[in-house]
């Protein structure tokens, strides 16, 4: 366990150093939530007015989950670059724990996500979002777990196909239904009944509902249960997949 922590922090440090050396991506990553909030938020005003409640409390949780998912989906791209240059193979020939090679990279993605989430929430509060401390913390935690799941899956997929040309269309293919059926922009319950039923089959919809509920301070057991359940399940499955890909020979 100590080896795992030691090794994963070395990998994390290396990743963080390389990320910070290329600040363009860090800045773009930080700007994203700000732009969404400032430029897209106002568009929602008339719609949210019909739902009642604070428009930023409606909107920020969706943005949060979107950040968690979409940023993390792209984590695998940098892994393909490293693999091509022989870095992954060089790391796998050291005695380092295989899981640490994945986790070190996940820490980097999650740290970035945490910073983005704090900016988003902070800005939301400045703009007048309701303040429910416990709910916000719960929402951010769920988002980070979901982001970790997506980053792990992205890394696992990247190291399996080893091609950006395969990665890019597949990510688009996955993102489309996620965006449309999880109520990231507007709650699904706002739409037609059949669409709401259909969206029930989209796991991330339940996560979005739970995060949104938490931000409103509405801890409905069923909503939270489904959201937390799906988050934990997705996280567990993706980590298992990621670790097994890093462990597999010839990866």
């Amino acid at each position, binding site marked *: 366990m100590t080896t795992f922590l*030691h*090794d994963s922090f*070395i*990998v994390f*440090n*290396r990743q963080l*150093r*390389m990320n910070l*050396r*290329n600040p363009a991506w860090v800045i773009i990553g930080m700007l994203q939530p700000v732009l969404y909030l400032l430029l897209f938020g106002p568009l929602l005003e008339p719609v949210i007015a019909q739902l009642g409640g604070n428009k930023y409390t409606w909107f920020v949780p969706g943005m949060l989950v979107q950040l968690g998912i979409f940023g993390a989906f792209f984590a695998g791209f940098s892994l393909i*670059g*490293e693999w*091509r*240059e*022989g*870095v992954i*193979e*060089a*790391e*796998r*020939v*050291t*005695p*380092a724990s295989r899981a640490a090679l994945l986790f070190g990279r996940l820490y980097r993605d999650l740290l970035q996500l945490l910073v983005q989430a704090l900016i988003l929430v902070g800005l939301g509060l400045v703009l007048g979002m309701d303040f429910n401390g416990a709910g916000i913390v719960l929402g951010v935690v769920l988002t980070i777990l979901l982001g970790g799941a997506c980053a792990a899956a992205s890394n696992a997929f990247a190291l399996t196909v080893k091609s950006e040309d395969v990665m890019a269309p597949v990510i688009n293919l996955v993102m489309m239904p996620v965006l449309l059926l999880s109520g990231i922009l507007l709650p699904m319950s706002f739409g037609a009944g059949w669409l709401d039923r259909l969206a029930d089959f989209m796991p991330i919809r339940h996560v979005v509902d739970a995060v949104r509920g938490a931000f409103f301070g509405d801890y409905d057991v069923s909503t939270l249960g489904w959201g937390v359940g799906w988050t934990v399940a997705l996280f567990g499955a993706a980590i298992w997949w990621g670790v097994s890909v890093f462990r597999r*020979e*010839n990866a």
Partner: protein
Amino acid sequence: MTTITARGLVQTFHTGQGKKKVPVRAVDGIDLDVAEGEVVGFLGPNGAGKTTTLRMLTTLLKPTAGTATVAGYDVATQPVQVRRSIGYCSQVGSTFSGAYAGDEVVDHGRLYGMSKADAVAKGHDLFDRLQLDGLWRRMPKNMSGGQKRRLDIAMALIHSPSLVFLDEPTTGLDPQARANLWQHIADLRSEQGATVFLTTHYLDEADALADRIVIIDKGRIVASDTSDNLKAQVAGDLVSVEVATDEQVAVARDKLASIAETVEVAGRVVSGRVSRAAKVVPGLLRDLESSGATLEAIEVARPTLDDVFLTLTGRSLRDAEAAAEAADEGAAQDHTDEGVPA
């Protein structure tokens, strides 16, 4: 003391599309022994199974069948101990193009459990030895091919392994960079006492660096001996004589046939393999002169590893490689014959 022992090593890949998976034995039952302190050249054409064998010995690939003990540990059941004992320099590289060279080496050392201070000290020492001084804060993308390969070797040596695997160390380098790298590879043993196992498809590289050459073709080892002994297996030196006129070809052929087993004629050039050319060629020259033949040229060539490969496999290394190399015009193979111009 042997540091690598492999018995019946097999690697089967499955290739093909859809349901029709065709098993291919990339490595087809290899036995190998490498003694401590030896420099072994693993020679064969592209696709012969060199890298696959190396990846099994370095625990990156689990053998389909057979066993291998590396540095005293079993590659299948004690991979972590094997990894601690060996250095591996892969064909593709080991560092990220956008990271500082020094940082990459230090992080690599720390994954072997070295303290940061030790890794920094050892890293600087290696940079000095490998002529990388001043490049600690240079990114690999701004390095020459030769510098990058030396950086890969520094990565492989950071934890002071007693056994180093080098996969095609000089592929893609220009002649000066190759010669320079050869010197550093030779130093691995002379200065650091390391056992070196290197794969190559360059004959001159195996000839220049290795105590012993192991030739692999189609996943099987076809020979294992010193360069000189391998060459001695080939039936003699190649003597080629070019005469001035067509009429003299018959005379030259008869005279050469009296000392060589088979004689080939191509235009006015008559050639044949003779054992101990130095002893018989002066007599041949006198015979030709007394029978009135005028020589345009004479050449005596010692057998090359290419001749050895041809003798062992029935095709030349270049032919075996032709398909794979066709697309790669940059990798011109400079083949050094020990020719004796007359």
